[in-house]
């Protein structure tokens, strides 16, 4: 692979040769890296899209189709293309094309690093109906129960949001807007609650009163997938 290089000689190599060998190896390495990037990019993009789709289906029970929406500064419109950002949210529809709810992504500081999560919200009943952690680095064995502990995750399956969600000591949940915190991981539990409350604070007033806008026929449900 290095035919361009001069054959080695007994004499001390000149600086041209040193620069040339570094340049050639750097160039070849660059080519290989571009090659592997281009070769794996479609799979990686697809994996990420599938991951997101599965998360949306998980946090919105009964949903079989989804559509990306975005807030354009004034109202929520159909997202055409481009990368997802903090102004993107997802609308979920059931098999009969009836609107079920929104999946909202939100993030904030956890115990160790940023926690990124997605939660399902039903505007009709003003309820959170599901929560899925997308990214976190909480302490293994303690904080990571925010996604490993099924009982904690189930807290978010039917949760009132008014006036706002509160984490209470495990076993003392009485109100519909309270969740049982994880013993030994209070900070992580409270972080999840705070992240959802912040997501609500940002999104609730932006959401339209009725069902969200639908894309043109044919353009609809581009992100379609099955459960």
């Amino acid at each position: 692979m290095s035919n361009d290089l001069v054959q080695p000689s007994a004499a001390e190599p000149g600086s041209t040769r040193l620069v040339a060998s570094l340049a050639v190896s750097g160039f070849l390495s660059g080519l290989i890296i571009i090659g592997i990037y281009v070769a794996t990019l479609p799979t990686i993009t697809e994996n990420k899209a599938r991951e997101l789709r599965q998360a949306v289906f998980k946090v919105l029970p009964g949903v079989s189709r989804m559509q990306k929406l975005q807030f354009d500064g004034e109202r929520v419109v159909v997202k055409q293309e481009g990368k997802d950002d903090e102004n993107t949210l997802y609308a979920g529809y059931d098999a009969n094309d009836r609107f079920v709810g929104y999946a909202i992504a939100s993030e904030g500081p956890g115990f160790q690093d940023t926690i990124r999560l997605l939660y399902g919200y039903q505007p009709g009943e003003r309820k959170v109906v599901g929560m899925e952690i997308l990214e976190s680095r909480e302490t293994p064995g303690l904080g990571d129960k925010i996604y490993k502990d099924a009982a904690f995750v189930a807290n978010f399956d039917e949760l009132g949001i008014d006036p706002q969600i509160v984490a209470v000591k495990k076993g003392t949940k009485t109100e519909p807007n309270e969740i049982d915190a994880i013993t030994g991981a209070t900070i992580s539990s409270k972080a999840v609650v705070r992240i959802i409350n912040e997501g609500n604070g940002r999104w609730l007033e932006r959401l339209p009163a009725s069902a969200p806008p639908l894309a043109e026929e044919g353009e609809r449900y581009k992100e379609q997938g099955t459960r």
Partner: protein
Amino acid sequence: MAVTSKTTAYDEMLKGLWRDNPVFVQVLGMCPMLAVTNSAVNAIAMGLATFFVLVGSSFLVSSMKGLIPKQVRISVYVIIIATFVTVADYTLLALFPVVHKELGAFIPLIVANCMILGRQEAFASKHTVKYAVMDAVGMAGGFMIALFALGAVREILGEGKLFGLSLFGEHFEPWVIMILPPGGFITLGLLLLLFNWVGERKRQFMVQVAEQAKAEG
């Protein structure tokens, strides 16, 4: 170092697995060793990625050793290693996104694993392709064995599982500390102790045998 017979090439491989084990004897590559061994699967994945990078780099360095000027050899080695690491990184991300998520930043950090650069400088750049590859296979294999030993112990004690399968049933209370960083240090320390104790016993035994032979002879 002219090695000729077939058995010596085999020896080059075996030495990395046990006698010169990169972790237990040379104590190299401690960063991934401690960071990603909180489960057996992570340890194996890290071991395989390192295996790929080390064998690939040793092969390339050894086959191009006449072409690399010695003044810039370290930079060229790093370029070669970094290329293999990037290939491993993207391949893992595309094929095993879950494992990649767990290993996170530690895949790109294989570049900085001193064991890999060390093998290029100390061995691959001075030997033929065959010996270099055998040496790399042995060293990477030894590294993987060490990672697995640590990962398995930590997962069994820290979660009561091995490869995600529950071992002790409901009543086992996991030792959470074992999957946290201190557990890594404790386990590594105990394994090193064991390794050195066995080595010392063997040495004493040899001395004893030699003295006996002398006394009798």
